[in-house]
């Protein structure tokens, strides 16, 4: 019989257990952020503008950390989901409108995930009509048939597969020094395409659903206030990892597609294919594999998160530890998001999918300001957060950050709605004259 040895050893083991028990939500949420849409945006940024947008990753990471940290804190302190808190604070009508908008946004995103899956699989040699239904079934079954712990483990493994990007970037033999210099040294190009891209980068990084998902995941994990510091690190590490992956994608595409003057790409699979001639087959496959992994990963979390917070907000039973009969609304929502998302990709040609994605981006632009403002108001409530309210300094940072995100998201939504380039050049014009 092995007895537990010294108290110090027990202490160490105990700390490790605690760490493993807390880690997860932050890293998973941040990684899902690099979904099919994200990979496409980063690929485009690299292919079209080389290293010149790399510097934006630093402020984006900071903004992401500021926002996500607050949500995680609310989850740990109150033990309630964000939708729950909004419902209790702002009433049913506000909650309902928010949820309806979120449903639209997330449906559009789910469609984008399945489209990403299809285009990644194409590079790997699997047809769309096989890949999409199979992928949809796998993500559906994982959540409906699996337990929370299993699901979380699978998700964490999916996070590890993002390693495909650094490797494929390495194979592209980029000029590392130049890439690092351009990351630290900001440089702005004053043309409309550059600005549209910049807005796209921000829009794809900070999404409303992430806030709901992270808070619910933190609550479901039952993390204690005392261990919050660890949870905070979970969030910070997650955000940094995410943007590291973004960095590698941009660099890979910059070192190959941009350098060779190929410029624009329309889907992420195209980026993967375009890597081939310059960085070799392996890089191309790894890139496509990363895309497939990211799409599947996000296609399971997005509908799940959506089902979670809609049910939470409207007071229906939710949670993957419950059966279908216990939480029918939850499972119906989850299933129909996946099925309809997959069907849209199979039935509609990419051009016809475009309005769906456009609509969801506009809804996103309307929604995000509300979510961020509600968050800031909730986290400053003494009766809710006690001593864990924002400090004055942090509040200032948070409001400024959220203000900038809101302004840029709104701008991005407007440029999406109106003929993009014209709007941005109009705005640039206006700036120059005023």
């Amino acid at each position, binding site marked *: 019989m092995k007895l537990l040895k010294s108290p110090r050893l027990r202490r160490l083991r105990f700390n490790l*257990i605690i760490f493993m028990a807390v880690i997860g939500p932050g890293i998973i949420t941040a990684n899902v952020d690099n979904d099919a849409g994200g990979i496409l945006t980063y690929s485009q940024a690299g292919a079209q503008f080389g290293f010149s947008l790399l510097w934006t990753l630093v402020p984006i990471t900071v903004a992401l950390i500021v926002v996500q940290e607050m949500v995680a804190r609310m989850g740990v302190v109150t033990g309630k989901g964000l939708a*729950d808190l909004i419902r209790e604070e702002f009433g049913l009508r506000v909650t309902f409108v928010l949820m309806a908008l979120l449903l639209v946004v997330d449906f559009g995103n789910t469609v984008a995930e399945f489209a990403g899956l299809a285009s990644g699989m194409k590079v790997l040699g699997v047809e769309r009509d096989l890949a999409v239904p199979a992928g949809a079934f796998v993500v559906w079954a994982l959540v409906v048939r699996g337990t929370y712990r299993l699901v979380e483990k699978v998700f964490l493994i999916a996070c590890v597969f993002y390693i495909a990007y650094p490797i494929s970037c390495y194979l592209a033999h980029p000029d590392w020094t130049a890439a690092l210099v351009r990351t630290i040294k900001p440089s702005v190009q004053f043309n409309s395409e550059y600005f549209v891209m910049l807005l796209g980068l921000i829009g794809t990084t900070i999404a409303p659903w992430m806030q709901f998902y992270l808070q619910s995941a933190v609550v479901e994990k*039952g993390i*204690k206030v005392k261990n919050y510091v660890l949870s905070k690190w979970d969030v910070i590490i997650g955000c940094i990892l995410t943007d590291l992956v973004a960095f590698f994608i941009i660099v890979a595409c910059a070192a190959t597609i941009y350098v060779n003057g190929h410029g624009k790409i329309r889907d992420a699979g195209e980026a993967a294919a375009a890597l081939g001639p310059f960085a070799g087959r392996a890089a191309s496959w790894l890139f496509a594999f990363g895309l497939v992994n990211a799409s599947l990963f996000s296609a399971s979390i997005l509908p799940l998160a959506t089902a979670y917070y809609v049910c939470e907000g409207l007071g229906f039973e939710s949670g993957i530890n419950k059966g279908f009969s216990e939480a029918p609304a939850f499972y119906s929502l989850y299933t129909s998001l996946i099925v309809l998302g997959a069907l849209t990709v199979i039935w509609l040609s990419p051009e016809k999918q475009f309005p769906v994605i456009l609509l969801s981006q506009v809804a996103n632009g309307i929604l995000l300001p509300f979510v961020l403002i509600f968050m800031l108001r909730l986290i400053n409530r003494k009766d809710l957060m006690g001593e864990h309210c924002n400090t004055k300094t942090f509040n200032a940072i948070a409001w400024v950050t959220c203000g900038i995100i809101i302004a840029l998201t709104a701008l991005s939504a407007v440029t999406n709605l109106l003929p993009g380039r014209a709007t941005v050049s109009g705005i640039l014009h206006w700036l120059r004259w005023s």
Partner: protein
Amino acid sequence: MIYFTELDHTPVFDAKGELLGHLSDMVVDASRDPLQVSAYLIKTPQNDVLSLTHEQVQAISIQQIQTGVPTESVRPYAPDEGLLHVRKDVLDQQIIDVNNRKVVRVNDVDFDIRPTNGRTALRILAVNVGVAGIVRRLFQGVVAKRMLRFFASMFPARTIPWEFVNLIEPDPARRVKLRISFDRLARLHPADLADIIEELGRDEQKAVIESLDHETAAHALSEVPSELQTALLESIPTEKAADIVEEMPADEAADILQKLEPETSAEVLADMGKEEASDVRELLGFEERTAGGLMSTEFVFVGEKAQVEGAIEALRNFEGQLEAIHFVYLIDDSAVLTGSVALARILAADSKTPLSELAIKSVIAVEPHTDQAEVVELFHKYNLLTLPVVDDKRRLLGLVTADDVLEVVLGRK
């Protein structure tokens, strides 16, 4: 019947027929009558809040509220923690549906409206948690009230009668004032209670655990996931935690203490009764994921020469949970396990029968360091209910029971 949503923002007129303001909330004074609406809060056009007592109200309809008194006699509202506010404390909040053992969110509140002594009085009937309530909330003020009544009636209305509603107030002092108790929760099955606790927010969980008696709290706590177990135990005062852990079977108590922070765990142990603490300490020495880590020290044993009546005597004197006992174990003078007798055999036999005649002699047993996977295999292979754990000299140390094994199989341990 009338709904809170319908009355919300209804205009209130004074005796002269002038507009006093609009209804903003309703108040129940639990110390006088737990069901009757005792006052109506009115927001005036100047944004002041007035409190109209129920005696001052003459008639209530979904169109308007008519008072029988002049404006001057309506008092301004003085906030009072001891009163239950329908909008603030009930609407949109989580409540426990004691009857269906669930946590639900309130969409609307139903009132019984009836004339008494020439005045209209409202009494709380039920809370509304169905889709009909959501529809009413969404369209109130947009669609005419009578139309909305008809429209909402097409959706399923799930209501919970007020007597089965358990409000959850985290503040203990206010809980007393509002006369909220969790007594009815104590009567639920511990597994249901655990499900309810899991659904609640942090403060609410703490409130429920703290107000339950130790035994019920211990049972409920055994059923919640281990992260939540430790979170809850660490959030309540150490003495209370010790009282609760004391009520748990020693093996579960040891499991929980192992997961608490070492300092907290030591404090809790120090606060526990001597006997319970020493049982738990013994178990704390065993590694997790082994037979030793799984076993409990609650078992019934007699000398190998005893008769049936001796076994029954031992059962009567047993202080642990009798429900968990399936076998009486026989030991020799040096405490070595020599046999086991099934409970049913003891019942069926004559009181003078020597137990050795009823016993199975070659008892399957394992040593404490045996891996839990192997333990599961043995349970499966031999269809066991319990498995004795013995030391290297075959002296009986404890028992692994089928429910412990089930936890392992389901991956909860």
